[in-house]
C-alpha cells in the first residue's frame, strides 16, 4: 500500500490518496479526505494480474542475475530470507483477488438460495 498527494475529483484539491496494488497492478485508489475511490475492474484485474505474474516469473532469473552481479554480498545475504518469505508475499499480494472471488461466490450462493435453487 502506498500513499501520495493526488488531485481528487470530488474534493477538487490535492488530497492524500491511498493506493492498493495487486502485484504490480494498481487495484484501487481512495481519497483519504472524502473516501472517493477509483477501482480497477475486478475481472480485468485478475486477467492483468495473471498476465503480469507470468511476465514476472519469466523475467525473474534475468533480474536475479543482474542483482547478483551488482551486489553479490547483499544478494546472497538476503536470498535465504527471500526464499522463505516469497510464497507468503505472493499469497498476500493475491489475497484481494481471492477475497473478491470468495465474496462473489458467497453472493451467488445467497442469490441461488433466495431463488430456491
Amino acid at each position, binding site marked *: 500500500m502506498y500513499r501520495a498527494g*493526488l488531485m481528487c475529483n470530488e474534493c477538487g484539491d490535492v488530497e492524500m490518496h491511498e493506493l492498493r*496494488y495487486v502485484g504490480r497492478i494498481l487495484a484501487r485508489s481512495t481519497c483519504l479526505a472524502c473516501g472517493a475511490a477509483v477501482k480497477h475492474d475486478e475481472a480485468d484485474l485478475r486477467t492483468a494480474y495473471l498476465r503480469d505474474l507470468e511476465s*514476472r516469473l519469466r523475467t525473474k532469473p534475468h533480474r536475479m542475475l543482474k542483482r547478483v552481479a551488482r551486489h553479490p554480498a547483499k544478494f546472497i545475504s538476503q536470498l535465504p530470507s527471500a526464499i522463505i518469505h516469497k510464497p507468503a508475499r505472493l499469497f498476500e499480494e493475491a489475497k484481494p483477488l481471492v477475497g473478491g472471488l470468495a465474496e462473489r461466490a458467497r453472493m451467488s450462493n445467497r442469490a441461488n438460495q433466495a431463488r430456491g435453487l
Partner: protein
Amino acid sequence: MTSRGPKVAAVVLAGGGGTRFGGLHNKVYLPLAGRRVVSWSLSAMSRVPAVGRIVLTVRPEDRELADEILDREVPDLAVEIIDGGDTRHASEYNALHHLAADVRSGAIDIVLIHDGARPLIAPSLICELIDVARDVGGAVPGLPVSDVTEVDSKAHIRERFKECALVRVQTPQAFDAQVLLSAYAAAAAEGFTGSDTSSCIERFTDSVVKHVRGDERNIKLTYPRDLFLAEQILAASGYSLK
C-alpha cells in the same frame, strides 16, 4: 550529431508534489507497471542518443529513496542526483547551476527540462524537441485545445478561441543551454520566479520558442485515474514506449 559534438542535458524534476504531505508521498515515487514513475521518465531520456547527461532534482529528504530506486530499477543509467528547491523555478535554477560549467564551455548545447510525473514521454518526441531547439532556440510540446471559451467577470461567454490559438503545454521543454542559463541568472538577479521554464525565457531573452505537437500519451499524473490510464498505455505498448 557526432558523439564528439555538444551534448544534451536532461533535467528531470522530482522535487515537488509533496508540498502539503512531505516528500515520502511524492507521486513520482509511486509504482507504475513494475517501476517507480520517475524511473520511466529517466529511462525515456536515456534512450535518446543525444542525451549525454541526466540530472534528477529531488527533495533532500527523498535522496536516499531516489538512490535506492535508481540502483534497483535503472542501475545502468548515470543519473546525477541534486537537491531541488522550494519551487519548480528554484529546482530548475539549481540544475542549471549544476550544469553551468559544461554549458559555458559549450559541452552542453541544449537543456531539456522534464516533469518527473510525466513517465510516458516518447524518445521520438524528445528527439524532435532537441532538433527544433537547435534550430530556433527553444521548443515546447503542446496539444491543441479546442474547447476553450473566454468568460467575463459576469460569467458571460465572450469569445470562443480559435482552435489554433491555444495549446496545452507539456514537458520536456528544450532550450539553448546558454540562453537558458543567462535567463535564469537574470531572473535570480531580479528575484523573478517563473511558473514554467518558457516563461523565464520569454521574459529575459529574445529567443524564439517554437511549439511542437505533443503526444496524447504524455500525460501528467495528476488524478488517480491518470495512474490507471498510464498503466494501460504501458501494458498496451508491452511496457516499452517507442
